[in-house]
């Protein structure tokens, strides 16, 4: 049963464009996350957001920024995409165990 929702499922764009991905959770969890899963299937944490406290993985380029309106929503904006941003972006929420959304597959041409 899906409780972490992501839109869109897929997005194809060109280098330099801005993109935004949405994530909503209906679990009532306090913490949400964004992960990047690359072509080798490695899961890398990008951000975690808890009670308006943002924790950033310092390796994440500055063109990435999370945006939250409330604890049920955590969106991801990429200001000017680059080819290496092509990946699946997974949103998750947690009150200890993490539950993942289905992901958004980004292709940068």
């Amino acid at each position, binding site marked *: 049963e899906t409780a*972490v929702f992501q839109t869109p499922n897929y997005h194809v764009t060109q280098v330099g464009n801005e993109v935004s991905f949405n994530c909503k959770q209906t679990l009532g969890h306090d*913490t949400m996350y964004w992960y990047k899963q690359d072509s080798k*299937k*490695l*899961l890398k*944490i990008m951000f*975690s957001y*808890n009670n308006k406290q943002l*924790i950033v993985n310092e390796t994440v380029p500055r063109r990435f920024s999370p945006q939250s309106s409330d604890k049920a929503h955590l969106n991801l904006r990429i200001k000017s995409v680059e080819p290496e941003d092509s990946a699946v972006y*997974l949103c998750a929420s*947690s009150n*200890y*165990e*993490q*539950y*993942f*959304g*289905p*992901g958004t597959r980004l292709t940068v041409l």
Partner: protein
Amino acid sequence: GDSVTQTEGLVTLTKGLPVMLNCTYQTTYSPFLFWYVQHLNEAPKLLLKSSTDNKRTEHQGFYATLHKSSSSFHLQKSSVQLSDSALYFCALSPMSNYNVLYFGSGTKLTVEP
């Protein structure tokens, strides 16, 4: 620092055989260990979890025991099925910060007829 190591990147087995996927971790804090399974084009889903030393935990035919003495949480199943073909991630949450999850590099399990 905190980390998880999965030594096998790819495991291929014939249906009906047993499997063990290795997971070792490093942390200076009390650990909470997880196994996640990700089927093709799906989200990772929690399979097993444990924070209790030397206690076996089971779910859907899979089992694992956290051994703090050897910093291990290996995933096992006595008889794999075709539907078990998936990517398996071991993950660590140090009790000092339960909001953080450190993932291993994953093991792709392929079960052949």
